[in-house]
């Protein structure tokens, strides 16, 4: 049997709008993945603790507040500190194109901006998880 992919869908920082995160969570569920949804206003440390306890293959973060350049790399750094760099990190939300190269350089594997079909995200996660 094929291994079930586990994804943590998280909302880092202070914006209070999680419709997008929920749409993604639902789409990943419908694609046969197990989605651990953590809710709003998570700190990078909370996200990393959850990722480790849940032993996920991927952390998918939705962020609309503009703090992506601070919060997303922080999650990657904390994962590295926990020796958990084998977890794929992706982001989505309102993120200006000029910030994307910086985020990728910091270890966020892909950024999905508004209008991305959910299939694109699903396929990306399926093809890029690092473990087994």
């Amino acid at each position, binding site marked *: 049997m094929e291994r*079930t992919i586990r994804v943590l869908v998280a909302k880092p920082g202070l914006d209070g709008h999680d419709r997008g995160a929920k749409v993604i969570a639902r789409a990943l569920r419908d*694609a046969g993945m197990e989605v651990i949804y953590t*809710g709003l206003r998570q700190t990078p440390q909370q996200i990393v603790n959850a990722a*480790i306890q849940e032993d996920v293959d991927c952390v998918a973060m939705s962020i609309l507040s503009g703090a992506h350049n601070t919060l997303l790399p922080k999650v990657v750094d904390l994962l590295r500190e*926990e020796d958990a760099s084998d977890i794929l990190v992706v982001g989505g939300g309102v993120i200006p194109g000029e910030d994307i190269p910086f985020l990728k350089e910091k270890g966020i594997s892909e950024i999905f901006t508004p209008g991305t079909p959910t299939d694109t995200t699903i396929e990306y996660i399926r093809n890029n998880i690092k473990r087994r």
Partner: protein
Amino acid sequence: MRLFVGFAKKMRESGGESMEIRERLLKGDKRAAARLITMIENNEAEAVEILKDMYGHTGKAYVIGITGPPGAGKSTLTDKLVKHLRKQNKKIAIIAVDPTSPFTGGAILGDRVRMGDLNTDPGVFIRSMGARGRLGGLSEATRAAVKVLDVYGADYIFIETVGVGQSEIDIVKTCDTTLMVMVPGLGDDIQTIKAGIMEIGDVFAVNKADRDGARRTITEINMMLDFNGGNWRPPVIPAVAINNEGIDDILEGIKNHMDHMKETGEFNKRRIANCKFEIIDLVRQRLMNTLLDKSKREKRINELSGMVASREMDPYTAQETIFNDIK
């Protein structure tokens, strides 16, 4: 040859990894616990071998089941109960079970939403599990996860499950104390007479007790419990989990049940009964897997299903046919 060398190397590495997991788990390493639970969920044979080795280290944690209808406040209540226990510096693990879609195999596991601030407490380990539609496999995987978290060193393990369906009732047979969470306004007193719910709770909490109808719900549950025999009468405790009301009373109820079990010898009896259930469940699954081994028998079963649907054969004869095939 190169293939073989690669294989041997892989075997060595995985052997090394499983040794390492054993050692790290005994030291209370969270990543090791998390990884081993994943291996169990993915039915990796290695996981069973590790559990066999580790079994002698289990049995120390006190296991509390929390069940009740969807939306009753189980996660919120668990969050508050755990916070109170953390003040006594107890190490806690929580297994939160949510349903899996029978169509896609996917799941949204959302119990962590209500436990956000437990997340940064190093003394708390939370793991969400999806039911994954395995044949009776949910209770098996949950029981295995309990063993892992026991070795990891949890003093208390909470299993939170949606209280509908047989597999959830089965999970309760893993627990030392079961807390049934009810809410006002779910139906008339006939609901409380129905089998199942009233029989598996050792402690009852009526959450959202600030709502209309709470007193009536409490009275109805009490009336039903008065009919139950046995030497333990479950308490019925009002609570408003979100406002932290009634949490101490519930913990006291759990503590009283724990003391009662230990004083009366009921604790050992229950653990033996739980082990018996586990063994039978494992045997049943092995038998089912052997009997219904898809590659061998699925075609035959499909043929018979067609015949039963068109009334050429009855299901009882179909069952006899399958059994005769196996003999």
